């Protein structure tokens, strides 16, 4: 056993010495490799954590949202519509919601205006999300004017700012009193944006939805399950940016591996010949190269992953912000709770470490089975 370890260490010694000979090239390769793992791992960790976070937070959203459709588009709920929902068994509570979008030309940002059904906001006052606090420099007690779509200027007093911890869902919110909301948007009285239904028994939800669409053919029930599913699929690692990045990265990796695979120089071949002539077995040479592949790919994986972990969970995935932000002016600042999906890590490991180790071995195999007397003849 001791002998075996010593032998492996000799092989590592040798493979490191030959790597050190082309130091810049090999360090560059390791750098690119680490970067690749870093990007892939960052995306995987980030989307996974965001998915978990979304699932956890949105689990509290209403069981059913009922929209009314006109010509296939979301339309206002007219007066009396809520009553037409009638008494459906299982529905505990039904209430009309008032919310809409407002474009603030000052900072060129979109806000979500909303009326909390539970109340809590006085007339003439608003409660703003943390991103608004930043972008408009608002604090409790400040006044702010918005020009409504009809051209009139409305002034509100900021009563409160929503907690920063909830920014992921509340960054752009402006909560106001119902009367203010209707006045600001010229919202016809009695109309609502949509209806939120509370269903106590989760097993009933689907039934309720079916009954709703039967009773109100122009309605569209949106179930909480669907909401959760939508977010699961948005952040599903196979989708969106992950897929794009992954395919590009894997392609790049393929090129890298190919470069390595076809990159067995005449010098390296000669070296293998010498090693065989002085008493190395084919197996020793392959093991030596295996160590090379393993050392490089394992180092790249571990370093890349740890860096990605720090990036996502301790530096708030700063590098992704521009991509995720897109064109939005208001962007939530949030800290994700660290979550690691074992399967994801295993997949990442398999797809980064394994192909590289194999790519290193393939050409060596060909070179190593050549006769050792080649060095004498050459």
């Amino acid at each position: 056993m001791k002998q075996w370890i010593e032998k492996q260490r000799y092989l590592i010694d040798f493979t490191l010495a030959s790597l050190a000979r082309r130091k810049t090239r090999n360090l560059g390769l390791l750098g690119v490799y680490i970067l690749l793992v870093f990007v892939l791992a960052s995306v995987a960790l980030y989307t996974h954590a965001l998915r978990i976070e979304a699932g956890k937070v949105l689990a509290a959203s209403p069981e059913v949202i009922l929209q009314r459709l006109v010509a296939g588009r979301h339309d206002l709920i007219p007066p009396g519509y809520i009553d037409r929902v009638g008494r459906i068994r299982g529905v505990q509570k039904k209430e009309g919601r008032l919310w809409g979008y407002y474009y603030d030309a000052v900072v060129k940002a979109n806000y979500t205006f909303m009326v909390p059904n539970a109340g809590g906001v006085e007339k003439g006052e608003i409660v703003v999300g943390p991103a608004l606090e930043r972008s408009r420099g608002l604090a409790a007690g400040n006044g702010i004017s918005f020009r409504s779509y009809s051209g009139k200027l409305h002034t509100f007093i900021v009563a409160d700012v929503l907690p920063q911890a909830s920014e992921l869902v509340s960054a752009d919110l402006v909560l106001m009193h119902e009367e203010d909301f209707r006045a600001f948007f010229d919202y016809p009285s009695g109309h609502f944006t949509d209806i939120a239904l509370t269903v106590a028994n989760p097993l009933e939800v689907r039934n309720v939805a079916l009954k709703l669409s039967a009773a109100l053919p122009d309605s569209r029930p949106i179930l909480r399950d669907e909401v959760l599913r939508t977010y699961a699929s948005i952040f599903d690692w196979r989708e969106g940016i992950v897929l794009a990045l992954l395919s590009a990265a894997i392609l790049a990796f393929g090129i890298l591996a190919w470069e390595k695979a076809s990159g067995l120089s005449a010098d390296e071949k000669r070296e293998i010949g010498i090693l065989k002539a002085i008493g190395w077995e084919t197996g020793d040479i392959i093991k030596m190269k295996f160590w090379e592949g393993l050392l490089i790919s394992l180092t790249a994986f571990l370093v890349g992953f740890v860096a990605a972990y720090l990036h996502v969970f301790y530096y708030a995935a700063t590098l992704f912000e521009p991509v995720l932000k897109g064109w939005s002016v208001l962007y939530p600042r949030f800290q994700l709770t660290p979550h690691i999906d074992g399967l994801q890590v295993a997949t990442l490991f398999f797809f980064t470490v394994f192909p590289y180790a194999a790519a290193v071995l393939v050409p060596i195999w060909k070179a190593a089975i050549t006769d050792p007397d080649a060095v004498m003849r050459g």
Partner: protein
Amino acid sequence: MIELSGIRKAFNQGQHNEYWALNGIDLAIEANKVTALRGPSGSGKTTLLTLVGCLARPTEGRVRLKREDISGLPERFLTEIRRRTFGFIFQQFNLIKGLTALENIILPAYPTGQPRRELLERAETLLANLKLGHRRDAKVEWLSGGEQQRVAICRALINDPEAVIADEPTANLDTHLAKEFMAILEALAGEGRTILLTSHDPLVVESAVVDRVVDMRDGVIVDCG
């Protein structure tokens, strides 16, 4: 020590450029003697060296090492025999660039997995014997031709082989260095090692150190010495 009988060796067998480098060799190499193979280039002496040193297998015929037939052994066993029994000094020295003299010397012992301390001690002793101790940490590409050869000799001896095989050892050396090499050879012979070398350098083959000269031409032995 080594017996060759009916040895033939072909390159590119079965192809249009088929070439028989050796054409019926019968030769016995005695232990503890210095044997030199002499012949013009293309006479097959280097090919014969590769067969004796288990670097290659004959196309026909048998190679016996200490009465044991080794011509049919699989590669693994051949490698082990080679490592234990033979030390090689190549014409081009064939040192690994980028490694130090010391690292080059202990290279043949890597597959054995011996403790590094022992190996290094042995290598240092060998280097000191050849008066090269001061160059042990130098990269081999910085060494002169004579120094490189001495490193190659040390490397050949690291596994303490019974036989040393040298291919045209003086071809890249001037007269002074060639004489030094012959002195080293004499010392090796004095230690009781079997030595087999190829050369057409009169300095080597006419030296008193060489016990026997075998003349070759066109893949056959013309004078058994």
